[in-house]
């Protein structure tokens, strides 16, 4: 029996019918909603490739049960860029060569986006902690950390302009 489920996804109200409330947000996004920007690397909450933002916090979507999503606010990588261009975190990864294969990149970008939403000026330690939560097998993290620092200053200059 399919259960109706309503939540906010990338600033839009969505209603889906889920067969199994214990299935994961990752599968819902990738298989039912066609949002394949969120990646699966381990399915046990360890690698961070599937990171999305739920109610402002970065969570592994492979552990987020759909049954608990009712009324909540979900943001995925697809929400970060649009006709107006890229999110500053994305721009930072582009300019700092922050990706190689790119498979971990959406997860890193979302984790950093959530951090900057909560703490616009995180210190080096916070950046390192955040990046530490997601695996990358390609880069050795040097250029991901460069990207994280660049994202902070980019965001700072953008909010400065907006004022």
């Amino acid at each position, binding site marked *: 029996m399919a259960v109706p489920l309503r939540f906010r996804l990338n600033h839009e109200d969505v209603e889906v019918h889920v067969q199994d409330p214990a299935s994961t947000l990752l599968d819902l996004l990738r298989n039912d909603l066609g949002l394949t920007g969120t990646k699966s690397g381990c399915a046990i909450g360890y690698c961070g*490739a599937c990171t999305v933002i739920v109610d402002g916090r970065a969570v592994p979507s492979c552990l987020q049960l759909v049954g608990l999503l009712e009324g909540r606010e979900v943001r995925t*990588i697809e929400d970060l860029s649009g006709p107006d261009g890229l999110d500053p975190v994305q721009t930072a990864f582009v300019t700092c060569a*922050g990706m190689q294969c790119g498979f971990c*990149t959406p997860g890193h970008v979302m984790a950093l986006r959530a951090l900057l939403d909560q703490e616009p000026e995180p210190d080096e330690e916070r950046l390192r902690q955040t990046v530490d939560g997601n695996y990358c*097998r390609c880069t050795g993290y040097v250029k991901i950390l460069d990207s994280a620092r660049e994202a902070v200053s980019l965001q700072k200059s953008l909010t400065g302009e907006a004022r």
Partner: protein
Amino acid sequence: MSTTHAPVPGLPRERDVLPPVIGSAVQRIDAVEKVTGRASYAADTRIPRMLHAAVVRSPHAHARVLAVDTSRAARVPGVHAVITGADTAQVKWGAFRPDLYPLAVERVRYVGDEVAAVAAIDLETARYAAELIRVEYEVLPAVLDLDAALADGAPLVHDDAPGNLAHEFAFDRGGAREWLERSDVVVEGVWQSTRQWHGSIETIGCTAEWSQDRVTMWVNTQTPFLARQRYATALGLPLRAVRVVQTEIGGGFGGKSGDDNTSVICAILARKTGRPVQLVNTREEEFLASRPRIPMRYHVRLGFTSDGLVTAKEIDLVADNGAYTGKAQAVLGAATVRHDALFTYRAVKARSRLVYTNLVPTGAFRGFGNPSADWAVGQAWDLAATRLGIEVPDLFLLNAVESGSVSPHNHRISSCELKQCIRRAAAAIGWYDKRAAPTPHRGLAMGVSVHVSGRRSFGDYDGSSAIVRLTEDGRAAVIIGEGEIGTGARTTLAQIAAAELGLAVADISVSRPDTDLTTHALGALASRVTYVAGNAVKQAAERACEQLLAAAARQTGRPAAELWVEDGHVHAPAMPGEDTPLRQPVGTVVRAELYRPGGEPIVGLGSFDNPSEFPDQLRYGNESGAYNFVAEAAEVEVDPATGAVTVLELAAAVDCGTVLNPPLAEGQVEGAIAQGLGMALTERFDWDGGAPTRPNFVDYKMPTAGVMPKLHVEFADSYEPTGPFGAKGVGEIALDPVPSIVASAVADAVGVRVHELPITAEKIFWGIRTGSTTPPEQAGPGGLSESAEPAPPDRPAPPRDRAPGEER
């Protein structure tokens, strides 16, 4: 990194006038796709009516398959096909030694061996049905380590491999025993490396669809053309029936080079169902059924004169093939000979054996045997430095190869800045200052390595070809089958084309491999794409450019010799009597060349074959046209109370010729070092009954950002005359020395020499306390992790601050 060079006599003048796009930090051409999540990886392929698949795997290390009952699975609503070995062509396949069936026929040979598979309407249904398949096994005795496999009367993994030997060879080049007997100092030891998994965050996956009698496979393979050949064999099909298209690849490292069954099973299911089928490994399956690094056990003997000149080296190498061979045979070759291209050995002797076991099959992994060779031979060199009382960098400098050196295996070294790398790595880590003022519990070490730029391995060809088409909108399309696994290869190829064509990199597109549509290519392995494919693209672009200038000459009535291309325009000086120079958009010239009676496109074809030799059965032959080098130095700190190791700093100086794109090259070095640190320190499983107890990321710990040391990455001032704009390969080399230098630095810090990977706190803890890295209750005869060097009678006092008697 510097792109301005003083003229060097004998080198092409090109070196002095590298185009500005060469050596500049050009943005990756695929960066935006990747940061936005739009890049389409193997599991992102979506085809209408696509089914999903699941595989049933052996729970036994060795068993006879008596019966497979698929009836319950087949009745599950939503299941479209269930297949077993009987549904396959029952043909063995493999890159060098065909020994693998697509699905088990009569026997399973390791925990994870594929037995049956299901295609269903969705993944849950496929997995549920797979669980309903009942397989009846008769468990057979298994060989679960090298010694068991080599023992007299050991059970055979394959009946046609007596003694469980998959491959062996031996040579003596120059009379090594005699040289060793006449050496003043001989060091000796046994070192064991371990299975290391590629750990790509994206697992192996395929989507297959048949149309009449042809199958198209969208695969995340590094080597679409080589994989296609093997898949056709495995499917019992003619080559023409298989088309392979490369998807975006979420990390390769050798693990996605087409030696496993996933894509083959996917194609069989697609044929049986008549629908597209997708099969993607779970993380657990990736650990069981991909092809990790080969564990190797080296017995090494190295000889020196009393003043530190190396004489000879002898190795006896046994390598754990696992249940199937894949590329392990070629890896064994590299692991035996390549490191001899580092030092001026007078003689080398080797015996190498690749041994079947009932364990996870092994294969190609970044470094291709070198990291295991360096783990053993690199530590032997470190021991030798201690024995000789010479600092490691100085010992290396005394013996390092140079441009023009020829190894005992006929590696003919063209460009070589190994000595520059050694000096730079020593300077970057502050070697001599730190030696002068040692800090307790801290240790220093240095290692060097050499790698190929392409390796003649799959027949007598290691070439590449490319087509450059100038488009009527003034851009260029590079059509080439080499592909992209994440290194940025397509971006560097675009830079090379841009440099030749006088176009902006943003105006160059580079194809993805499609075995129907692109040029034939061996793909991303053996650090070959920059060097081999780069040369092919360069020539294709040159030829397209010549045609463009000839066309412009015809169109404008000027001599072609006066024309050049820059900034997307064809230029010429003003004609006598005119005041404006010619400045014609490239697209205008291309269009004018087409839109006329008998019009023609502007298309350049380029081709390059690695100027190398196909090594013979005994691995003699110059396997590559260009060799890249690295020197790395590490400083570690050991907590004497727990044995925990912290790598504080690591300096790498790399000779990869001209650096085409500094951030991309640095990224290769940084990522390789991270992988080397994982191999050195944490990447392992607990095993039981021939399999990891929990094959997942929780148990198998790879480096995270928090554990990375401070890295210093430098590139030697170097130029390879046969490389595109002087470039050589860079993808693998920086991983190779890392495990050995961490071990040697630990020995320097606390006097404990670890002989078996990984270098765990536990081994060091026991080493500090008991002199043996094996915990007391596990100690037995022949324990490998115990220091194996015989105590030399005439050992001079160690020059370093070392706890006495702890390193034997």
